[in-house]
Protein backbone atom coordinates (compact mmCIF):
# COMPACT_ATOMS: atom_id res chain seq x y z
CA UNK A 1 0.00 0.00 0.00
CA UNK A 2 1.04 3.54 -0.54
CA UNK A 3 1.14 4.54 3.11
CA UNK A 4 3.89 2.06 3.74
CA UNK A 5 6.32 3.99 1.64
CA UNK A 6 5.53 7.23 3.41
CA UNK A 7 6.15 5.61 6.73
CA UNK A 8 9.28 3.77 5.70
CA UNK A 9 10.97 6.90 4.45
CA UNK A 10 11.39 8.13 7.98
CA UNK A 11 13.00 4.88 9.00
CA UNK A 12 16.16 5.39 7.01
CA UNK A 13 17.35 8.46 8.72
CA UNK A 14 16.25 8.08 12.29
CA UNK A 15 18.62 5.61 13.87
CA UNK A 16 17.34 4.03 17.03
CA UNK A 17 14.05 5.89 17.23
CA UNK A 18 10.42 5.52 16.24
CA UNK A 19 9.68 2.61 18.52
CA UNK A 20 5.94 2.95 18.25
CA UNK A 21 5.73 3.13 14.48
CA UNK A 22 3.95 -0.07 13.42
CA UNK A 23 1.20 0.49 15.96
CA UNK A 24 0.66 3.95 14.55
CA UNK A 25 0.37 2.91 10.95
CA UNK A 26 -2.75 0.86 11.41
CA UNK A 27 -4.67 3.96 12.40
CA UNK A 28 -2.90 6.06 9.84
CA UNK A 29 -3.95 3.79 7.07
CA UNK A 30 -7.59 4.38 7.87
CA UNK A 31 -7.17 8.10 8.38
CA UNK A 32 -5.36 8.89 5.14
CA UNK A 33 -7.36 8.33 2.01
CA UNK A 34 -4.84 7.00 -0.43
CA UNK A 35 -5.28 6.86 -4.19
CA UNK A 36 -4.48 3.36 -5.36
CA UNK A 37 -2.78 2.47 -8.64
CA UNK A 38 -5.05 0.92 -11.22
CA UNK A 39 -3.23 -2.42 -11.37
CA UNK A 40 -3.75 -3.05 -7.66
CA UNK A 41 -7.48 -3.04 -8.16
CA UNK A 42 -7.52 -5.21 -11.24
CA UNK A 43 -8.52 -8.30 -9.29
CA UNK A 44 -11.68 -6.69 -7.92
CA UNK A 45 -15.10 -6.83 -9.56
CA UNK A 46 -15.70 -5.05 -12.87
CA UNK A 47 -18.07 -2.27 -11.80
CA UNK A 48 -16.07 -1.43 -8.69
CA UNK A 49 -12.95 -1.31 -10.83
CA UNK A 50 -14.59 1.15 -13.24
CA UNK A 51 -15.65 3.30 -10.32
CA UNK A 52 -12.12 3.26 -9.00
CA UNK A 53 -10.57 4.14 -12.32
CA UNK A 54 -12.86 7.14 -12.72
CA UNK A 55 -12.39 8.34 -9.15
CA UNK A 56 -10.42 11.59 -8.89
CA UNK A 57 -7.62 9.81 -7.04
CA UNK A 58 -6.69 7.88 -10.19
CA UNK A 59 -7.99 10.15 -12.91
CA UNK A 60 -6.19 13.33 -11.81
CA UNK A 61 -2.62 12.01 -11.73
CA UNK A 62 -3.13 10.10 -14.98
CA UNK A 63 -4.44 13.26 -16.69
CA UNK A 64 -1.54 15.27 -15.28
CA UNK A 65 0.92 12.68 -16.58
CA UNK A 66 -0.65 12.70 -20.04
CA UNK A 67 -0.66 16.50 -20.08
CA UNK A 68 2.99 16.55 -19.04
CA UNK A 69 3.98 14.10 -21.79
CA UNK A 70 1.90 16.08 -24.30
CA UNK A 71 3.58 19.38 -23.45
CA UNK A 72 6.95 17.65 -23.68
CA UNK A 73 6.10 16.09 -27.05
CA UNK A 74 4.95 19.39 -28.55
CA UNK A 75 8.16 21.10 -27.45
CA UNK A 76 6.60 23.32 -24.82
CA UNK A 77 9.47 22.76 -22.36
CA UNK A 78 12.01 23.34 -25.09
CA UNK A 79 10.57 26.79 -25.66
CA UNK A 80 10.40 27.77 -21.99
CA UNK A 81 13.85 26.62 -20.99
CA UNK A 82 15.44 27.34 -24.36
CA UNK A 83 16.50 23.74 -24.95
CA UNK A 84 17.41 22.00 -28.17
CA UNK A 85 16.00 18.63 -29.15
CA UNK A 86 19.42 16.98 -28.75
CA UNK A 87 19.51 18.11 -25.14
CA UNK A 88 16.03 16.94 -24.19
CA UNK A 89 14.78 14.29 -26.63
CA UNK A 90 11.07 13.94 -27.35
CA UNK A 91 9.10 11.05 -25.79
CA UNK A 92 8.42 9.53 -29.22
CA UNK A 93 12.15 9.54 -30.00
CA UNK A 94 12.84 7.78 -26.69
CA UNK A 95 10.14 5.20 -27.41
CA UNK A 96 11.56 4.54 -30.89
CA UNK A 97 15.07 4.11 -29.49
CA UNK A 98 13.76 1.72 -26.87
CA UNK A 99 12.06 -0.39 -29.54
CA UNK A 100 15.15 -0.43 -31.74
CA UNK A 101 17.53 -1.52 -28.97
CA UNK A 102 15.04 -3.67 -27.11
CA UNK A 103 17.05 -6.89 -26.74
CA UNK A 104 20.25 -5.14 -25.64
CA UNK A 105 18.37 -2.96 -23.15
CA UNK A 106 16.56 -5.99 -21.77
CA UNK A 107 19.77 -7.95 -21.19
CA UNK A 108 21.42 -4.93 -19.56
CA UNK A 109 18.41 -4.45 -17.29
CA UNK A 110 18.67 -8.10 -16.30
CA UNK A 111 22.38 -7.66 -15.54
CA UNK A 112 21.79 -4.59 -13.37
CA UNK A 113 18.87 -6.23 -11.58
CA UNK A 114 21.01 -9.31 -10.85
CA UNK A 115 23.65 -7.10 -9.23
CA UNK A 116 21.01 -5.27 -7.22
CA UNK A 117 19.21 -8.41 -6.01
CA UNK A 118 22.36 -10.36 -5.10
CA UNK A 119 23.92 -7.36 -3.37
CA UNK A 120 20.73 -6.65 -1.47
CA UNK A 121 20.45 -10.25 -0.27
CA UNK A 122 24.05 -10.32 0.95
CA UNK A 123 23.84 -6.85 2.50
CA UNK A 124 20.53 -7.52 4.23
CA UNK A 125 21.80 -10.85 5.60
CA UNK A 126 24.93 -9.18 7.04
CA UNK A 127 22.83 -6.34 8.43
CA UNK A 128 20.48 -8.79 10.12
CA UNK A 129 23.42 -10.66 11.67
CA UNK A 130 24.82 -7.37 12.99
CA UNK A 131 21.43 -6.60 14.54
CA UNK A 132 21.33 -10.07 16.11
CA UNK A 133 24.78 -9.59 17.59
CA UNK A 134 23.97 -6.10 18.83
CA UNK A 135 20.84 -7.39 20.57
CA UNK A 136 22.54 -10.43 22.06
CA UNK A 137 25.53 -8.51 23.46
CA UNK A 138 24.17 -4.96 23.88
CA UNK A 139 27.23 -3.50 25.61
CA UNK A 140 29.74 -4.32 22.90
CA UNK A 141 27.41 -4.85 19.99
CA UNK A 142 25.82 -1.41 19.90
CA UNK A 143 29.19 0.09 18.95
CA UNK A 144 29.09 -1.88 15.71
CA UNK A 145 25.63 -0.46 15.06
CA UNK A 146 26.95 3.09 15.33
CA UNK A 147 29.74 2.28 12.88
CA UNK A 148 27.26 0.79 10.42
CA UNK A 149 25.06 3.88 10.73
CA UNK A 150 28.10 5.99 9.89
CA UNK A 151 28.68 3.78 6.85
CA UNK A 152 25.14 4.65 5.80
CA UNK A 153 26.10 8.32 5.49
CA UNK A 154 29.11 7.58 3.27
CA UNK A 155 28.41 8.58 -0.32
CA UNK A 156 28.12 5.54 -2.61
CA UNK A 157 30.31 7.15 -5.22
CA UNK A 158 33.23 7.15 -2.80
CA UNK A 159 32.84 3.40 -2.38
CA UNK A 160 32.73 2.63 -6.09
CA UNK A 161 36.46 3.10 -6.90
CA UNK A 162 37.59 1.17 -3.81
CA UNK A 163 35.31 -1.78 -4.47
CA UNK A 164 36.58 -1.74 -8.02
CA UNK A 165 40.17 -2.09 -6.77
CA UNK A 166 39.22 -4.94 -4.45
CA UNK A 167 36.90 -6.98 -6.60
CA UNK A 168 37.93 -6.17 -10.17
CA UNK A 169 35.58 -4.63 -12.72
CA UNK A 170 33.26 -7.63 -12.98
CA UNK A 171 29.90 -8.13 -11.33
CA UNK A 172 31.57 -8.61 -7.93
CA UNK A 173 32.46 -4.98 -7.35
CA UNK A 174 28.86 -3.81 -7.87
CA UNK A 175 27.53 -6.53 -5.59
CA UNK A 176 29.99 -5.29 -2.96
CA UNK A 177 28.82 -1.68 -3.41
CA UNK A 178 25.18 -2.67 -3.08
CA UNK A 179 26.06 -4.82 -0.05
CA UNK A 180 27.70 -1.86 1.65
CA UNK A 181 24.79 0.46 0.95
CA UNK A 182 22.04 -1.92 2.06
CA UNK A 183 23.69 -3.22 5.24
CA UNK A 184 22.99 -0.19 7.41
CA UNK A 185 19.24 0.17 6.84
CA UNK A 186 18.71 -3.52 7.64
CA UNK A 187 20.93 -3.48 10.74
CA UNK A 188 19.25 -0.40 12.21
CA UNK A 189 15.70 -1.48 11.45
CA UNK A 190 16.13 -5.10 12.55
CA UNK A 191 17.75 -3.91 15.78
CA UNK A 192 14.78 -1.62 16.38
CA UNK A 193 12.40 -4.51 15.75
CA UNK A 194 14.22 -6.86 18.11
CA UNK A 195 14.18 -4.20 20.82
CA UNK A 196 10.49 -3.36 20.32
CA UNK A 197 9.16 -6.53 21.93
CA UNK A 198 6.29 -6.63 24.36
CA UNK A 199 7.78 -6.61 27.91
CA UNK A 200 5.00 -8.93 29.06
CA UNK A 201 5.96 -11.47 26.42
CA UNK A 202 9.56 -11.26 27.62
CA UNK A 203 8.39 -11.82 31.21
CA UNK A 204 6.42 -14.86 30.07
CA UNK A 205 9.52 -16.26 28.38
CA UNK A 206 11.50 -15.71 31.57
CA UNK A 207 8.84 -17.48 33.64
CA UNK A 208 9.20 -20.45 31.28
CA UNK A 209 12.94 -20.29 32.05
CA UNK A 210 13.61 -19.80 28.35
CA UNK A 211 17.27 -19.31 27.47
CA UNK A 212 18.63 -16.58 25.23
CA UNK A 213 18.43 -18.70 22.05
CA UNK A 214 14.79 -19.54 22.74
CA UNK A 215 13.89 -15.89 23.31
CA UNK A 216 15.47 -15.07 19.95
CA UNK A 217 13.92 -18.04 18.21
CA UNK A 218 10.34 -17.51 19.38
CA UNK A 219 10.09 -13.83 20.25
CA UNK A 220 12.67 -11.39 18.94
CA UNK A 221 12.99 -12.61 15.37
CA UNK A 222 9.21 -12.79 15.02
CA UNK A 223 8.72 -9.25 16.28
CA UNK A 224 11.52 -7.90 14.09
CA UNK A 225 9.90 -9.16 10.87
CA UNK A 226 7.76 -6.05 10.13
CA UNK A 227 10.85 -3.88 10.58
CA UNK A 228 12.90 -6.27 8.45
CA UNK A 229 10.44 -5.88 5.59
CA UNK A 230 10.47 -2.11 5.93
CA UNK A 231 14.25 -2.29 5.60
CA UNK A 232 13.95 -4.61 2.60
CA UNK A 233 11.68 -2.10 0.87
CA UNK A 234 14.14 0.72 1.53
CA UNK A 235 16.92 -1.52 0.28
CA UNK A 236 15.07 -2.45 -2.91
CA UNK A 237 15.36 1.16 -4.06
CA UNK A 238 18.80 1.74 -2.57
CA UNK A 239 20.20 -1.36 -4.24
CA UNK A 240 19.07 -0.22 -7.71
CA UNK A 241 20.73 3.15 -7.11
CA UNK A 242 23.90 1.45 -5.87
CA UNK A 243 24.09 -0.89 -8.85
CA UNK A 244 23.51 1.88 -11.40
CA UNK A 245 25.90 4.35 -9.79
CA UNK A 246 28.49 1.58 -9.46
CA UNK A 247 28.23 0.94 -13.20
CA UNK A 248 28.75 4.59 -14.12
CA UNK A 249 32.51 4.44 -13.81
CA UNK A 250 33.99 0.98 -14.11
CA UNK A 251 31.82 -1.34 -16.13
CA UNK A 252 31.35 -2.63 -19.63
CA UNK A 253 27.76 -3.80 -19.21
CA UNK A 254 24.57 -2.77 -17.49
CA UNK A 255 22.13 0.14 -17.52
CA UNK A 256 24.40 2.54 -15.64
CA UNK A 257 27.25 1.92 -18.07
CA UNK A 258 25.03 2.43 -21.10
CA UNK A 259 23.49 5.53 -19.54
CA UNK A 260 26.72 7.36 -18.79
CA UNK A 261 28.27 6.22 -22.06
CA UNK A 262 25.41 7.37 -24.27
CA UNK A 263 25.40 10.77 -22.52
CA UNK A 264 29.11 11.11 -23.26
CA UNK A 265 28.62 10.47 -26.97
CA UNK A 266 25.46 12.63 -26.98
CA UNK A 267 23.00 9.79 -27.71
CA UNK A 268 20.40 11.30 -25.43
CA UNK A 269 17.40 9.12 -26.42
CA UNK A 270 19.38 5.98 -25.52
CA UNK A 271 20.31 7.49 -22.16
CA UNK A 272 16.68 8.34 -21.47
CA UNK A 273 15.52 4.84 -22.35
CA UNK A 274 18.00 3.52 -19.75
CA UNK A 275 16.40 5.80 -17.16
CA UNK A 276 12.90 4.63 -18.11
CA UNK A 277 13.91 0.97 -17.84
CA UNK A 278 15.75 1.55 -14.56
CA UNK A 279 12.63 3.22 -13.17
CA UNK A 280 10.41 0.33 -14.29
CA UNK A 281 12.84 -2.24 -12.87
CA UNK A 282 13.05 -0.30 -9.60
CA UNK A 283 9.25 -0.15 -9.22
CA UNK A 284 8.89 -3.86 -10.07
CA UNK A 285 11.58 -4.84 -7.56
CA UNK A 286 9.82 -2.77 -4.91
CA UNK A 287 6.43 -4.28 -5.69
CA UNK A 288 7.84 -7.81 -5.48
CA UNK A 289 9.26 -7.10 -2.02
CA UNK A 290 5.93 -5.60 -0.98
CA UNK A 291 4.10 -8.71 -2.20
CA UNK A 292 6.49 -10.90 -0.17
CA UNK A 293 5.77 -8.76 2.87
CA UNK A 294 2.04 -9.44 2.46
CA UNK A 295 2.70 -13.18 2.29
CA UNK A 296 5.11 -13.40 5.22
CA UNK A 297 3.60 -11.11 7.82
CA UNK A 298 -0.12 -11.57 7.25
CA UNK A 299 -0.61 -11.62 11.00
CA UNK A 300 0.72 -8.12 11.64
CA UNK A 301 -1.82 -5.32 12.43
CA UNK A 302 -0.42 -3.08 9.67
CA UNK A 303 -1.44 -5.71 7.07
CA UNK A 304 -5.05 -6.06 8.19
CA UNK A 305 -7.76 -4.72 5.97
Amino acid at each position, binding site marked *: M*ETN*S*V*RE*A*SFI*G*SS*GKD*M*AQPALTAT*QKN*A*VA*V*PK*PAEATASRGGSRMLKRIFS*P*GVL*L*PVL*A*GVLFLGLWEFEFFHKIFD*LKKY*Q*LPLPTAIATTMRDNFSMLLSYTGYTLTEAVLGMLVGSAIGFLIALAATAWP*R*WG*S*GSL*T*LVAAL*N*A*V*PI*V*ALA*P*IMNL*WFGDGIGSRIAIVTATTMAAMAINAYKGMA*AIDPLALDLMHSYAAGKPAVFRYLRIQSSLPYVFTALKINA*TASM*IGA*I*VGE*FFFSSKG*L*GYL*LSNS*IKVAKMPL*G*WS*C*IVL*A*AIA*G*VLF*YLVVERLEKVFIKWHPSQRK
Partner: protein
Amino acid sequence: MKGGSIFVRGRLLPLFVWIFGLLLIWEGTSWMLLHVVETPLAQSKLPYVHEVLSTLWKYSGTLLKEGAATFGNAGVGFLIGAVAGASLAVLMSLSKTIEQLTFPYAIASQMIPILGLAPIIYGIVRDEQTSRIIISGYITFFPVALNMLRGLRSVDPSALELMHSYAAKPWAVYWKLRFPAALPGLFGGLKIAAPLAVTGAILVELMGAQHGIGVIMLRNLYYGSSHTYMFWSTVIVGALLGIVSYWLISLIERLVAPWQPEFRPKGGSR
Protein backbone atom coordinates in the same frame (compact mmCIF):
# COMPACT_ATOMS: atom_id res chain seq x y z
CA MET B 1 25.99 13.33 37.80
CA LYS B 2 27.36 9.92 38.61
CA GLY B 3 24.69 8.22 36.52
CA GLY B 4 25.61 10.44 33.61
CA SER B 5 29.29 9.50 33.68
CA ILE B 6 28.44 5.80 33.81
CA PHE B 7 26.11 6.31 30.87
CA VAL B 8 28.86 7.99 28.88
CA ARG B 9 31.43 5.35 29.74
CA GLY B 10 28.97 2.56 29.00
CA ARG B 11 28.20 3.92 25.53
CA LEU B 12 31.42 5.53 24.39
CA LEU B 13 34.04 3.05 25.57
CA PRO B 14 32.87 0.16 23.36
CA LEU B 15 32.59 2.54 20.43
CA PHE B 16 36.19 3.71 20.84
CA VAL B 17 37.35 0.12 21.21
CA TRP B 18 35.53 -0.70 17.96
CA ILE B 19 37.07 2.18 16.06
CA PHE B 20 40.60 1.53 17.29
CA GLY B 21 40.20 -2.19 16.74
CA LEU B 22 39.11 -1.66 13.15
CA LEU B 23 41.97 0.76 12.51
CA LEU B 24 44.44 -1.76 13.94
CA ILE B 25 43.02 -4.54 11.76
CA TRP B 26 43.23 -2.18 8.79
CA GLU B 27 46.87 -1.36 9.49
CA GLY B 28 47.69 -5.03 10.08
CA THR B 29 45.94 -6.18 6.90
CA SER B 30 47.72 -3.50 4.94
CA TRP B 31 51.07 -4.76 6.25
CA MET B 32 50.05 -8.35 5.45
CA LEU B 33 49.10 -7.47 1.90
CA LEU B 34 52.33 -5.60 1.34
CA HIS B 35 54.91 -7.87 2.96
CA VAL B 36 53.45 -11.33 3.52
CA VAL B 37 50.99 -12.00 0.70
CA GLU B 38 52.68 -9.52 -1.66
CA THR B 39 49.58 -8.84 -3.75
CA PRO B 40 50.04 -6.48 -6.69
CA LEU B 41 48.98 -2.88 -5.98
CA ALA B 42 48.82 -3.66 -2.27
CA GLN B 43 48.96 -0.05 -1.15
CA SER B 44 46.20 0.98 -3.57
CA LYS B 45 43.95 -1.76 -2.26
CA LEU B 46 44.45 -0.98 1.42
CA PRO B 47 46.98 1.73 2.24
CA TYR B 48 48.60 2.21 5.61
CA VAL B 49 46.38 4.22 7.93
CA HIS B 50 49.22 6.44 9.13
CA GLU B 51 50.24 7.31 5.55
CA VAL B 52 46.67 8.28 4.67
CA LEU B 53 46.37 10.34 7.83
CA SER B 54 49.62 12.18 7.14
CA THR B 55 48.49 12.91 3.57
CA LEU B 56 45.19 14.08 4.97
CA TRP B 57 47.10 16.44 7.24
CA LYS B 58 49.58 17.59 4.59
CA TYR B 59 46.97 18.50 1.99
CA SER B 60 44.29 19.54 4.47
CA GLY B 61 44.11 23.03 2.91
CA THR B 62 43.27 21.77 -0.60
CA LEU B 63 40.97 19.07 0.69
CA LEU B 64 39.14 21.53 2.90
CA LYS B 65 38.71 23.99 0.04
CA GLU B 66 37.41 21.42 -2.44
CA GLY B 67 35.27 19.78 0.23
CA ALA B 68 33.76 23.16 1.06
CA ALA B 69 32.93 23.71 -2.63
CA THR B 70 31.09 20.37 -2.75
CA PHE B 71 29.41 20.95 0.58
CA GLY B 72 28.34 24.48 -0.34
CA ASN B 73 26.71 23.41 -3.59
CA ALA B 74 25.04 20.44 -1.99
CA GLY B 75 23.87 22.74 0.80
CA VAL B 76 22.29 25.30 -1.55
CA GLY B 77 20.47 22.56 -3.46
CA PHE B 78 19.48 20.91 -0.22
CA LEU B 79 17.97 24.13 1.15
CA ILE B 80 16.05 24.84 -2.06
CA GLY B 81 14.78 21.25 -2.19
CA ALA B 82 13.81 21.31 1.48
CA VAL B 83 11.88 24.57 1.19
CA ALA B 84 10.13 23.38 -1.98
CA GLY B 85 9.34 20.01 -0.42
CA ALA B 86 7.96 21.55 2.76
CA SER B 87 5.81 23.98 0.73
CA LEU B 88 4.44 21.12 -1.36
CA ALA B 89 3.57 19.27 1.84
CA VAL B 90 1.67 22.29 3.16
CA LEU B 91 -0.16 22.64 -0.17
CA MET B 92 -0.99 18.93 -0.12
CA SER B 93 -2.39 19.20 3.39
CA LEU B 94 -4.47 22.24 2.38
CA SER B 95 -5.91 20.95 -0.87
CA LYS B 96 -7.24 17.50 -1.60
CA THR B 97 -6.89 18.06 -5.35
CA ILE B 98 -3.20 18.89 -5.18
CA GLU B 99 -2.62 15.89 -2.96
CA GLN B 100 -4.39 13.53 -5.36
CA LEU B 101 -2.45 15.06 -8.23
CA THR B 102 1.04 14.79 -6.78
CA PHE B 103 0.96 11.98 -4.21
CA PRO B 104 1.31 9.03 -6.64
CA TYR B 105 4.23 10.76 -8.37
CA ALA B 106 5.92 11.48 -5.04
CA ILE B 107 5.56 7.80 -4.09
CA ALA B 108 6.79 6.59 -7.47
CA SER B 109 9.80 8.87 -7.26
CA GLN B 110 10.77 7.09 -4.05
CA MET B 111 10.96 3.79 -5.89
CA ILE B 112 12.95 5.13 -8.83
CA PRO B 113 16.76 5.20 -8.79
CA ILE B 114 16.91 8.99 -8.69
CA LEU B 115 20.69 9.29 -8.76
CA GLY B 116 20.60 7.73 -12.22
CA LEU B 117 19.23 11.05 -13.40
CA ALA B 118 22.50 12.81 -12.54
CA PRO B 119 24.22 12.34 -15.93
CA ILE B 120 21.02 13.30 -17.77
CA ILE B 121 20.64 16.57 -15.88
CA TYR B 122 24.32 17.28 -16.37
CA GLY B 123 23.81 16.58 -20.07
CA ILE B 124 20.92 19.05 -20.24
CA VAL B 125 22.36 21.87 -18.16
CA ARG B 126 26.06 21.49 -19.01
CA ASP B 127 26.94 23.69 -16.05
CA GLU B 128 28.49 22.04 -13.00
CA GLN B 129 27.27 24.55 -10.46
CA THR B 130 23.64 24.50 -11.59
CA SER B 131 23.46 20.75 -12.11
CA ARG B 132 24.94 20.04 -8.67
CA ILE B 133 22.31 22.29 -7.13
CA ILE B 134 19.49 20.77 -9.20
CA ILE B 135 20.45 17.19 -8.31
CA SER B 136 20.81 17.92 -4.61
CA GLY B 137 17.53 19.80 -4.59
CA TYR B 138 15.68 17.10 -6.49
CA ILE B 139 16.96 14.37 -4.20
CA THR B 140 15.92 16.38 -1.15
CA PHE B 141 12.50 17.35 -2.46
CA PHE B 142 10.44 14.15 -2.20
CA PRO B 143 11.63 12.64 1.09
CA VAL B 144 11.08 16.01 2.75
CA ALA B 145 7.63 16.48 1.19
CA LEU B 146 6.41 13.00 2.15
CA ASN B 147 7.72 13.08 5.71
CA MET B 148 6.49 16.62 6.29
CA LEU B 149 3.02 15.66 5.06
CA ARG B 150 3.00 12.73 7.45
CA GLY B 151 3.94 15.11 10.25
CA LEU B 152 1.23 17.63 9.36
CA ARG B 153 -1.30 14.79 9.42
CA SER B 154 -0.11 13.44 12.77
CA VAL B 155 -1.86 16.20 14.71
CA ASP B 156 -3.84 15.05 17.72
CA PRO B 157 -7.55 15.35 16.72
CA SER B 158 -8.61 16.59 20.15
CA ALA B 159 -6.01 19.39 19.95
CA LEU B 160 -7.51 20.31 16.58
CA GLU B 161 -10.98 20.40 18.12
CA LEU B 162 -9.69 22.61 20.92
CA MET B 163 -8.31 25.05 18.34
CA HIS B 164 -11.69 25.02 16.60
CA SER B 165 -13.51 25.72 19.84
CA TYR B 166 -11.25 28.77 20.32
CA ALA B 167 -12.33 29.86 16.82
CA ALA B 168 -8.68 29.87 15.74
CA LYS B 169 -7.89 31.13 12.26
CA PRO B 170 -6.45 28.58 9.81
CA TRP B 171 -3.01 30.22 9.90
CA ALA B 172 -3.06 30.04 13.70
CA VAL B 173 -3.87 26.32 13.51
CA TYR B 174 -0.90 25.87 11.19
CA TRP B 175 1.51 28.05 13.10
CA LYS B 176 0.70 26.86 16.60
CA LEU B 177 -0.34 23.26 16.05
CA ARG B 178 0.49 21.71 12.71
CA PHE B 179 4.02 23.06 12.14
CA PRO B 180 5.33 22.01 15.55
CA ALA B 181 3.70 18.60 15.08
CA ALA B 182 5.32 18.30 11.64
CA LEU B 183 8.85 19.12 12.82
CA PRO B 184 9.87 15.53 13.73
CA GLY B 185 8.65 14.32 10.34
CA LEU B 186 10.40 17.17 8.58
CA PHE B 187 13.69 16.37 10.27
CA GLY B 188 13.25 12.68 9.51
CA GLY B 189 13.05 13.61 5.83
CA LEU B 190 15.95 16.04 6.08
CA LYS B 191 18.15 13.40 7.70
CA ILE B 192 17.48 10.98 4.87
CA ALA B 193 18.11 13.63 2.27
CA ALA B 194 21.28 15.28 3.61
CA PRO B 195 23.82 12.49 2.88
CA LEU B 196 22.04 11.81 -0.43
CA ALA B 197 22.43 15.44 -1.45
CA VAL B 198 26.18 15.22 -0.81
CA THR B 199 26.32 11.99 -2.81
CA GLY B 200 24.52 13.67 -5.68
CA ALA B 201 26.90 16.61 -5.68
CA ILE B 202 29.97 14.34 -5.69
CA LEU B 203 28.45 12.27 -8.48
CA VAL B 204 28.04 15.32 -10.70
CA GLU B 205 31.65 16.24 -9.99
CA LEU B 206 32.80 12.81 -11.13
CA MET B 207 30.92 13.36 -14.39
CA GLY B 208 33.35 16.15 -15.18
CA ALA B 209 33.49 19.40 -13.24
CA GLN B 210 36.26 21.83 -12.33
CA HIS B 211 36.01 22.09 -8.56
CA GLY B 212 34.95 19.86 -5.72
CA ILE B 213 36.13 16.80 -3.84
CA GLY B 214 34.91 14.46 -6.60
CA VAL B 215 37.23 16.10 -9.11
CA ILE B 216 40.43 15.46 -7.14
CA MET B 217 39.16 11.99 -6.29
CA LEU B 218 38.91 11.11 -9.97
CA ARG B 219 42.19 12.82 -10.86
CA ASN B 220 44.18 10.94 -8.23
CA LEU B 221 42.55 7.69 -9.22
CA TYR B 222 43.72 8.11 -12.80
CA TYR B 223 47.26 9.15 -11.80
CA GLY B 224 47.72 5.62 -10.50
CA SER B 225 49.49 4.08 -7.57
CA SER B 226 51.75 7.04 -6.74
CA HIS B 227 48.72 9.07 -5.71
CA THR B 228 46.98 6.33 -3.82
CA TYR B 229 47.22 8.05 -0.41
CA MET B 230 45.74 11.22 -1.80
CA PHE B 231 42.92 9.23 -3.40
CA TRP B 232 42.09 7.55 -0.10
CA SER B 233 42.15 10.93 1.62
CA THR B 234 39.54 12.25 -0.81
CA VAL B 235 37.39 9.18 -0.17
CA ILE B 236 37.63 9.81 3.57
CA VAL B 237 36.77 13.48 3.10
CA GLY B 238 33.75 12.50 0.97
CA ALA B 239 32.60 10.11 3.68
CA LEU B 240 33.12 12.76 6.36
CA LEU B 241 31.05 15.26 4.34
CA GLY B 242 28.14 12.81 4.33
CA ILE B 243 28.47 12.09 8.05
CA VAL B 244 28.84 15.78 8.93
CA SER B 245 25.71 16.67 6.95
CA TYR B 246 23.71 14.05 8.85
CA TRP B 247 25.18 15.14 12.16
CA LEU B 248 24.47 18.80 11.43
CA ILE B 249 20.78 18.11 10.76
CA SER B 250 20.54 16.04 13.95
CA LEU B 251 22.08 18.92 15.90
CA ILE B 252 19.61 21.42 14.46
CA GLU B 253 16.79 19.00 15.24
CA ARG B 254 17.87 18.91 18.89
CA LEU B 255 17.82 22.69 19.01
CA VAL B 256 14.57 23.25 17.12
CA ALA B 257 12.46 20.32 18.29
CA PRO B 258 13.90 19.27 21.65
CA TRP B 259 10.69 17.82 23.09
CA GLN B 260 10.79 14.50 21.23
CA PRO B 261 10.76 11.36 23.40
CA GLU B 262 14.03 9.95 22.03
CA PHE B 263 15.96 13.00 23.28
CA ARG B 264 14.94 12.39 26.87
CA PRO B 265 17.81 11.04 28.97
CA LYS B 266 16.18 7.69 29.74
CA GLY B 267 14.39 7.21 26.41
CA GLY B 268 10.62 7.26 26.02
CA SER B 269 9.83 3.57 25.71
CA ARG B 270 12.27 1.96 28.09
